[in-house]
């Protein structure tokens, strides 16, 4: 087994010991080579997500701190197999490396991360990257796995062939990572490879890669036996499907059985703080603004943080372990029936958490029409923002009676029906789209199945922080803003320094103005105001109803669920649930759809379609319920 070679022997002694010679370094590598794990190890919490202007490719930038405290800025570029300007991800990589990407500094050097178990393929990418002429460090990652599986490679001859420093590393264990620091402080040297492949012909590229590998005595490790064994279970003709179903049920079970108590606890905590705040602050306008406007508004949304984080944690574990790629294979046959393919499964599963990351996850779908169809149906999946609305309305109007034994009651059935309703509408919409405007003939489902791996807690944690921050940012801006505006509208117009009765307030006038449009659905003006505000984000309706009833002396002391009964009949409540199942009430989703589809056409069509469906379906639901339950 070869030892990681000292970088100095290849690049000359460091000029000034410890001071980096590069300011900006790009991290490049194929998907599944552990590039992100390495980036996380180097930068830790000193990183952020960004988008280059005009393109939808996301990238992370971060700071790597050397031992002496000097800092180097790292850019984690999207995973690429080659440098072909036809693919968007690869075009971005080329542009950044050539310094042609507006808003991104041209990197002074490249850290190329390859999977040492796949060098025959990955060395082709090395050939392309090295031919750009930037100082490059080639890291052969997953050295521990290579060793364990009986493979080997000699770093020195490989470095000579490529004309760049090469090191065997493991981003997971940290083995050999010192090579990065050594590279960054060494004298810069443009690569001088012995020979590079003739690009264009894949057969020649591969022959070159194999030749270079042979010079370095490269021997690939065997595919780990347990990956094959696990696949013979997870992709089994019969058991594969059963396990898939169990995994999906377990995902939702985890979120409800662990997430709900956590949310309840947080709710109690926030309520206690509200009581405390209201006692501490002097009575009057400030007290009302802080307690009713700010705290109750934003707080009603904060309580969903545990469930959202839990969902992303579970999906992250499935993704990093490699199971999600298998789930895509298993679901492909069913997805094909609605005209999509297995790659749509992952975004659609994430859409149960939140449509925003789900829509970003559609980037893995190569077929543009399939991608747009997936984007258009993703918001029909019951996202976590609908959950609070469903929970509140169901608890207020549907009596809990056992249906199937003591565990499944009417409320659980109602909740489940709403999930099914959204899913069914997604299927109908997908079929309609794929057999008309978004029909495509050559759908290629090509799914690489990486070996199963243990998820890394650090990577998962960093991703959860990303999601959590995005959610908190929304709670702190959009939802807080809407809450304050609403509170102000209930407080105006003032009479002799006194706030008006709720019936005379500005909000009441707005509500009564739109009432004719929503009366056919069985909603009164207060629900109307709630609906109006919920177009910012679904869960805002709870904050709004809280504010409206909070300032109304008649319902001030009542729990929100009780107060709701004065606004809605049971039929109106059913109509409200159906409306929320279908309507596109989320500014963040609209914004991300606009970004991902490069224009306003699709988000506007999607908004009109979903809202029309929601209105018609709510009307039908209202009428039908009136016949049977009054």
């Amino acid at each position, binding site marked *: 087994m070869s030892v990681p070679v000292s970088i100095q022997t290849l690049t000359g002694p460091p000029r000034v010991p410890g001071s980096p010679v590069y300011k900006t370094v790009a991290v490049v590598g194929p998907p599944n080579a552990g590039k992100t794990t390495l980036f996380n190890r180097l930068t830790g919490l000193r990183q952020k997500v960004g988008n280059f202007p005009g393109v939808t490719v996301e990238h992370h930038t971060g700071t790597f701190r050397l031992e002496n405290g000097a800092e180097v800025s790292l850019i984690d570029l999207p995973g690429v*197999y*080659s440098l*072909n300007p*036809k*693919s968007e991800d690869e075009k971005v990589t080329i542009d950044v490396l050539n310094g042609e990407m507006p808003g991104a500094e041209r990197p002074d050097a490249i850290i190329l991360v390859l999977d040492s*178990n*796949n060098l*025959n*393929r990955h060395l082709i990418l090395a050939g392309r990257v090295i031919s750009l002429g930037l100082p490059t460090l080639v890291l052969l990652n997953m050295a521990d796995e290579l060793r364990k599986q009986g493979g080997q490679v000699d770093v020195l001859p490989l470095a000579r062939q490529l004309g760049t420093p090469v090191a065997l590393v493991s981003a997971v264990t940290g083995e050999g990572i010192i090579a990065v620091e050594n590279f960054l402080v060494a004298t810069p040297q443009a690569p001088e490879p012995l020979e590079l492949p003739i690009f264009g012909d*894949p*057969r020649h590229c*591969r022959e070159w890669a194999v030749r270079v590998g042979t010079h370095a005595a490269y021997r*690939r490790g065997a*595919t780990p036996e347990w990956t094959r064994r696990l*696949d*013979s279970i997870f*992709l*089994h*003709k*019969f058991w*594969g*499907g059963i396990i*898939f179903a169990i995994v999906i049920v377990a995902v939702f079970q985890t979120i409800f059985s662990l997430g709900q108590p956590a949310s309840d606890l947080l709710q109690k905590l926030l309520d206690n703080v509200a009581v405390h705040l209201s006692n501490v602050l002097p009575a009057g306008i400030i007290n009302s603004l802080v307690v009713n406007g700010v705290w109750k508004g934003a707080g009603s949304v904060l309580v969903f943080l545990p469930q959202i984080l839990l969902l992303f944690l579970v999906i992250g574990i499935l993704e990093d372990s490699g199971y999600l790629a298998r789930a*895509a*294979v*298993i679901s*492909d*046959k069913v997805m*094909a029936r609605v005209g999509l*393919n*297995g790659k749509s499964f992952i975004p659609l599963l994430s859409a149960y958490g939140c449509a925003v990351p789900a829509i970003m996850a559609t980037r893995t779908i*190569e077929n543009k029409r399939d991608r747009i169809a997936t984007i258009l149906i993703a918001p029909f999946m019951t996202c976590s923002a609908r959950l609070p609305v469903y929970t509140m309305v169901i608890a207020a109007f549907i009596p809990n009676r056992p249906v199937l034994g003591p565990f499944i009651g009417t409320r659980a059935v109602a909740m489940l029906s709403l999930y099914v309703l959204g899913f069914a509408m997604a299927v109908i919409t997908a079929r309609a789209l794929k057999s008309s405007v978004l029909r495509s003939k*050559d*759908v*290629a*489902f*090509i*799914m*690489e*199945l990486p070996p199963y791996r243990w998820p890394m807690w650090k990577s998962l944690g960093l991703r959860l922080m990303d999601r959590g921050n995005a959610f908190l940012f929304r709670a702190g801006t959009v939802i807080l803003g809407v809450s304050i505006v609403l509170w102000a509208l209930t407080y105006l117009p003032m009479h002799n320094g006194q706030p008006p009765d709720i019936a005379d307030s500005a909000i009441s006038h707005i509500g009564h103005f739109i009432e004719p449009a929503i009366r056919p659905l069985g909603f009164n003006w207060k629900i109307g105001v709630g609906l109006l505000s919920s177009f910012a984000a679904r869960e805002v309706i709870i904050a709004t109803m809280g504010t409206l009833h909070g300032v109304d002396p008649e319902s001030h002391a009542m729990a929100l669920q009780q107060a709701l009964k004065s606004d809605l009949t049971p039929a109106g409540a059913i109509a409200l649930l159906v409306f929320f199942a279908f309507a596109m009430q989320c500014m963040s989703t609209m914004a991300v759809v606009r970004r991902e589809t490069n224009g306003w056409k699709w988000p506007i069509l999607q908004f009109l379609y979903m809202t029309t469906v929601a209105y018609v379906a709510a009307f039908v639901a209202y009428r039908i319920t009136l016949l049977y339950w009054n």
Partner: protein
Amino acid sequence: MVFNFMKQRAIHSVHTLFDLAVGESGILEDFNMPQTIAEHLMNLGFVPGLEVLVARSGPGGNPRVYRVDGTEVALRRDLSRCIAVRALTSAEAEAK
């Protein structure tokens, strides 16, 4: 010439990945599909001249998982019909 061609057909009766059963392998020859899809396959290791093994069939028989160049990739049946392969020659089979 004609005879040679016929003979070749008779020996190498396998034509596309689709015709291989699970556990069988063939040598990649050609792609009959849009260039972008073919390039994506080549990036994943489907390079003409390499051996592909049908590793397993997913639930319902479609997609199937192929092993090429140490990587496993799932492809649908319709795409596997567009990938031409030839049978291993006896020398190649022996070398395994």
